């Protein structure tokens, strides 16, 4: 998969050592903007993550969204704890949304870390993201983030 910068770094690869500085932003295919992060825990492919001021990525939760951390999706790869990789902050990608969420739903954090939900009960709204297909159990769902996702 091609990217515009930095030359030679592939965004579908995770690594145990940093290949570029954390916080590096690239533009990628499918209208995406991606940011290079360090995983603070194991993250499954498709999970939404919160990214702190040190570019540490953790599974998205209400508490982290309430802290107004940056929000992204690990759409290209699973990251083991302490691995480095790119995650998508905007554009078209597949992410983990709750099963049966209808198309073009507004999304909130959920009780399941890393998954977003169309049920707002006691959760925090995530701006900028909708799904373009119905959510299905155990499968990532096509999404559009028209801007950088944020709480």
């Amino acid at each position, binding site marked *: 998969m091609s990217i*515009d*910068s930095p030359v030679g770094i592939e965004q579908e690869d995770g690594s145990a050592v940093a290949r570029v500085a954390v916080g590096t932003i690239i*533009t*990628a*295919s*499918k*209208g*995406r*903007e991606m940011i290079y992060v360090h995983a603070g825990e194991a993250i499954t492919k498709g999970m939404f993550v919160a990214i702190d001021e040190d570019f540490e990525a953790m599974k998205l939760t209400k508490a982290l969204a309430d802290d107004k951390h940056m929000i992204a999706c690990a759409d290209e790869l699973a990251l083991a704890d302490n691995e480095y990789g790119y995650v998508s902050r*905007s*554009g*078209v990608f597949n992410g983990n949304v709750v099963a049966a969420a209808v198309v*073009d739903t*507004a999304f909130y954090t959920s009780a399941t870390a890393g998954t977003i939900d169309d049920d707002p009960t006691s959760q925090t709204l995530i*701006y*900028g*993201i*909708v799904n*373009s297909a119905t959510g299905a159990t155990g499968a990532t769902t*096509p999404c*559009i983030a*028209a*801007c*950088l996702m944020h709480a």
Partner: protein
Amino acid sequence: MSIDSPVGLLNNDSSSAAEFALGTIIKADDGRKMLYVLAADDFDKGDFVAIDENFAIRPLTKARADDRQMIGCCADFDVTDEEYTFVTISGVFEGNIIKDAAVDSAFYTSGTTSGYLDDDSSGQKEIFGVVNTAKGADGVPTPCIAACRMHA
């Protein structure tokens, strides 16, 4: 106009065949970010567009903003149905807004003209991230700033 990527591509042109992958983002030398799309309608220079998950563009309407599609502007030239081109998603550009909109207005979809932004919120959807830097005039694209990617 020069761009940083892909090498050699000009963003002031359109074509009947795809020259690059749909969804390619470029950074222009005037602060804009632009997205490569396929027109699903005819557009006048300055028209605002909704961009779906397949990177097809259609005139911006409340319904499409409600679906939270990506938003861009055909800021550089007219675009014909089924042509491929770049549209502006952020930065400084000229777009079609309703006549007499005051400078630095908050903008909404237009209830009267698809593809236009309007400062009248009545029954419409707010478009975040974009303001005008000059008063809107009839039939003339108006200077705008999109501080971030425009979105509903």
